[in-house]
């Protein structure tokens, strides 16, 4: 699902840590598009470019202090935090209020299909469904959107998402489940029928 940075990138990472600007530029070039994709889904296209560029510049300035092994996760953390900060300061888009947070995820309600329609499992190539999913992602809470994008689009593991979002794995699990369920419910409300199993 996502391209892994191979051994050559480890060499680049080591050189970038020691101040090699060209090595950093090469690393940044490899993840530029995924970062922008993530920021665009989080913020919209208008602010995504500035967010990513600021994040990469911030990553370069603190490159010497980077001690982890996953440069990709580290930069995604910077971008996600900046995107969440911008959303908090923006506060121009009230998000769809879901049911109040519950300790038990099992209590989250599942919308029932109202009519016959395409199977949800068969909608992957359906352009109209993708548009609905795009709208749905923009409507769910930002923290759920971030966790969902990091998992389903970028392919990060739960442990990596916990590091990126500075939360516990249990919180990541809850956010991903709630986010998926919210998108699923919006799809159902637009007339899609869930799979018969």
């Amino acid at each position, binding site marked *: 699902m996502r391209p892994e940075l191979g051994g050559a990138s480890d060499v680049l990472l080591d050189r970038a840590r020691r101040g090699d600007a060209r090595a950093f530029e090469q690393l940044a070039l490899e993840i530029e598009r995924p970062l922008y994709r993530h920021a665009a889904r989080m913020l919209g*296209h208008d602010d995504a470019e500035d967010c990513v560029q600021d994040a990469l510049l911030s990553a370069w300035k603190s490159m010497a202090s980077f001690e982890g092994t996953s440069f990709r996760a580290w930069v995604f953390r910077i971008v996600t935090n900046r995107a969440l900060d911008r959303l908090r300061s923006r506060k121009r888009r009230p998000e769809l209020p879901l049911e109040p947070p519950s300790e038990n995820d099992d209590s989250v309600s599942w919308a029932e299909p109202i009519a016959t329609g395409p199977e949800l499992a068969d909608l992957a190539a359906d352009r109209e469904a993708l548009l609905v999913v795009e709208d749905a992602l923009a409507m769910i809470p930002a923290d759920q959107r971030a966790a969902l994008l990091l998992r389903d689009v970028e392919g990060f593991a739960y442990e990596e998402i916990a590091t990126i979002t500075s939360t516990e794995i249990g919180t990541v699990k809850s956010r991903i489940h709630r986010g998926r369920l919210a998108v699923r419910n919006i799809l159902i409300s637009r007339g899609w029928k869930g799979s018969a199993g």
Partner: protein
Amino acid sequence: MHPFGDLSAYLDGALSSEARASVQAHLDTCALCRTRLAELRGTARLIAALPMPVPSRSLVPRVSVPVWLAPLRTFSTFASGAAIFLFLASAVIATFPRAQSAATAGAPAPNAVSAPQASSAGGSAAPSGFQGFQVSSPSPAPAPAVADKAASSATPAASANEIGRQDSVGVPSNAAAATRENSTPEPANPFAFLLSPWLWLVLAIGFAALSFAVGRRLRST
């Protein structure tokens, strides 16, 4: 009890082995949970299939700078300053007539003094020096004084040279010939264009622009 809350983690392979086995056992017997699991799987696939937006420009910051860029800016700055100085110097020089040619023409022989005297009518400086500003355009003060002499001698002369030099009578044609004779030997200077103020002005502006552009590039990193 349906393990709805674990379905996403089950789908993502994020459950412990025991929890996974428990959910698997439940799924084997519960059609509703299988339906919910398929819906979540379909939702995840739709999210993963979203079109990838593309930035309109490169977002990689240019943090690497060519080694020669900073010295180039330094050179451009100093070159611009030097060009401004040369522009001012050449502008000052250009306001004075050719003092050198008049000085060299008057110095060699006494009997050639008449030539400068005559040529001073045409605008060359007197041997004594910087009286050229008087003769580049006819100046009123000394000119009337010498004009009387010139009227008789036909050669307006500089004050230092008119003393006892009355043998310039009827000399205009000879003086002109002498002037030509004195001026023609001087070879054309191939580097005369270096005295052009416009050349140095253009260079000053060009180097200043280069320095500014390189400075912006350095500051952008």
